[in-house]
């Protein structure tokens, strides 16, 4: 079914193969010389694009890299997690299991709130590292860290329990590789306050039929208004 082709005219330089081939060879030669020179540069990072990975770990990993999970402690060393189970619900791969525990008297220095997670299990073999758990977490307790070397020999090792998660946190803290606190994304302000602070963007425009004017208080972080929004969502789904 191929239709006849519009013949492309070859120029003379194209017709005799050698000219373009020589040009190409000049190009590869330039790269060759550059890289040979570069590879004699002092260690560890020689040729610009190659990282001698296991030895050369100087490559900067993004501070918000979505790697190995950890359970954070607050500044007093108490567990942040309140075992609300939002992470488990949000997880697309259903790899998180949380069991609730109630704080007893005298455990205030261990757990930050009244509820804590008695167990917290993550199956790394299921996890897809989407980062939804850390986004959903109201306390910023579960966080994906910068650790990316996750290969293990057994299935059991790929199973993260609470102790491992806390250990991950301690290790990251020691190395100073904690994830910076999440920056809340500015959300469109509710219509009742028409174009209050927001300048000439169109975000304040009316005409969002689905999102009825359920006001969140000013510029709230999404996750903090979880319960409210849930209510709002339910109400909205009626229309």
């Amino acid at each position, binding site marked *: 079914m191929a239709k006849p082709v519009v013949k492309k005219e070859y120029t003379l330089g194209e017709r005799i193969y050698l000219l373009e*081939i020589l040009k190409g*060879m000049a190009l*590869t030669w330039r*790269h060759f010389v550059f*890289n040979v020179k570069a*590879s004699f540069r002092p260690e560890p990072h020689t040729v610009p694009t190659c990282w001698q990975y296991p030895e050369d770990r100087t490559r900067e990993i993004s501070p918000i890299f979505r790697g190995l999970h950890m359970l954070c402690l607050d500044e007093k060393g108490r567990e942040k997690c309140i075992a609300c189970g939002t992470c488990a619900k949000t997880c697309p791969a259903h790899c998180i299991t949380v069991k609730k525990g109630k704080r007893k008297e005298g455990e205030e220095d261990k757990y930050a709130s009244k509820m804590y997670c008695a167990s917290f299990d993550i199956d790394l073999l299921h996890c897809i590292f989407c980062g939804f758990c850390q986004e959903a977490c109201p306390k910023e307790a579960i966080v994906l860290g910068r650790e990316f070397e996750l290969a293990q020999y057994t299935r059991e090792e790929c199973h993260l329990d609470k102790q491992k998660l806390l250990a991950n946190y301690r290790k990251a803290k020691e190395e100073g590789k904690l994830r910076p606190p999440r920056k809340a994304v500015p959300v469109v302000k509710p219509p009742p306050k028409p174009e209050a602070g927001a300048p000439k963007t169109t975000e304040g425009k009316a005409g969002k039929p689905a999102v009825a004017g359920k006001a969140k208080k000013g510029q709230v972080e999404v996750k903090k208004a979880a319960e409210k929004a849930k209510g709002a969502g339910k109400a909205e789904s009626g229309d």
Partner: protein
Amino acid sequence: MEGWVIAIIKVVFIWAWVLLIATVMTWVERRGAAMMQDRLGPNRAGPFGLFQPLADGIKLFTKEEVLPKKAHKVLWSLGPLLFALPAFSAYAVMPFGDKIVLGGKEIILQVSNVNIGFLYILAIGSLAVYGIVLGGWGSNNKFSILGGLRSTAQLISYEVPLGLALLAIVFVYGTFSLRDIALAQQGTFLGFLPNWGIFKQPLGFILFMVAIYAEANRVPFDLPEAESEIVAGYHTEYGSMELGLYLFGEYVNLVTLSSLIVVLYFGAWHIPYIDVSKFLGPVSWGIVSFLIFYLKVSFFLWLFVWVRWTIPRFRYDQVMGLGWKALIPLALFNLFITALFIQLAA
């Protein structure tokens, strides 16, 4: 008796030397490619990864030999042998230096100076196609047989321009002996050019280069093993040292062909305008000529690598088209011109 010993020493020496070059070539190929592609290449085994070929060799030797269920056993095992052997045997007539005087005895740096060296190389070189086509057939794999067929067609087609280009050289030098051709390239030509084959046969040189790229199955003529089309061509089913023989034979082939270029077109061990042998003793001149020769060879070896990592590969019919429609007419033309000049000069 003495002649025998010397011959055997020469054989062993040159055999080991070519093996060494071929081994190093695998390293050069990979590192060179890497450097052209902004990578580093193998750099783990030894300094600069120089022991990488060794590691590869050990790996190939220790791997399990797998014989496909329906493969033809005899042809299957014959294939790699027939491919590697001619590559080595072709070196028998290749000069690799001028001569060396040891213990008052003059030794030519060539295993045997037969006066039909030329024909020998052509004959032996064509034998390599058997290894490929038998391996491809014996594997009982459609990709292998395709690779084998492509290779057969390609090698046979490119034998013709190769032979014609060589014929022109024979016209010019009037001899079939490679050593005589090498010796004839001393001095200058037309008073200012080095008396090298390339200046006497510029067109022939280009034709010859293209033809040997096809003979050696190198990019842009690496159709028989074009990995993106027919997996690995004729050696798809091979593993272990049988595969090693194929890969290695290819590099030995490269060395042979590069040496041939140097002997025929690049003045063998001569340096233009200077007759180095006058300044050196008979022993040191032998060594120096040997080194000069392989310096030139290494340039052509490098050229193989360089070209390979620069350009894409042809399609099967385009290769045939280039061979029959462009190279053979040009080679005939070249032959004609050469003959004309010789006639005029005489």
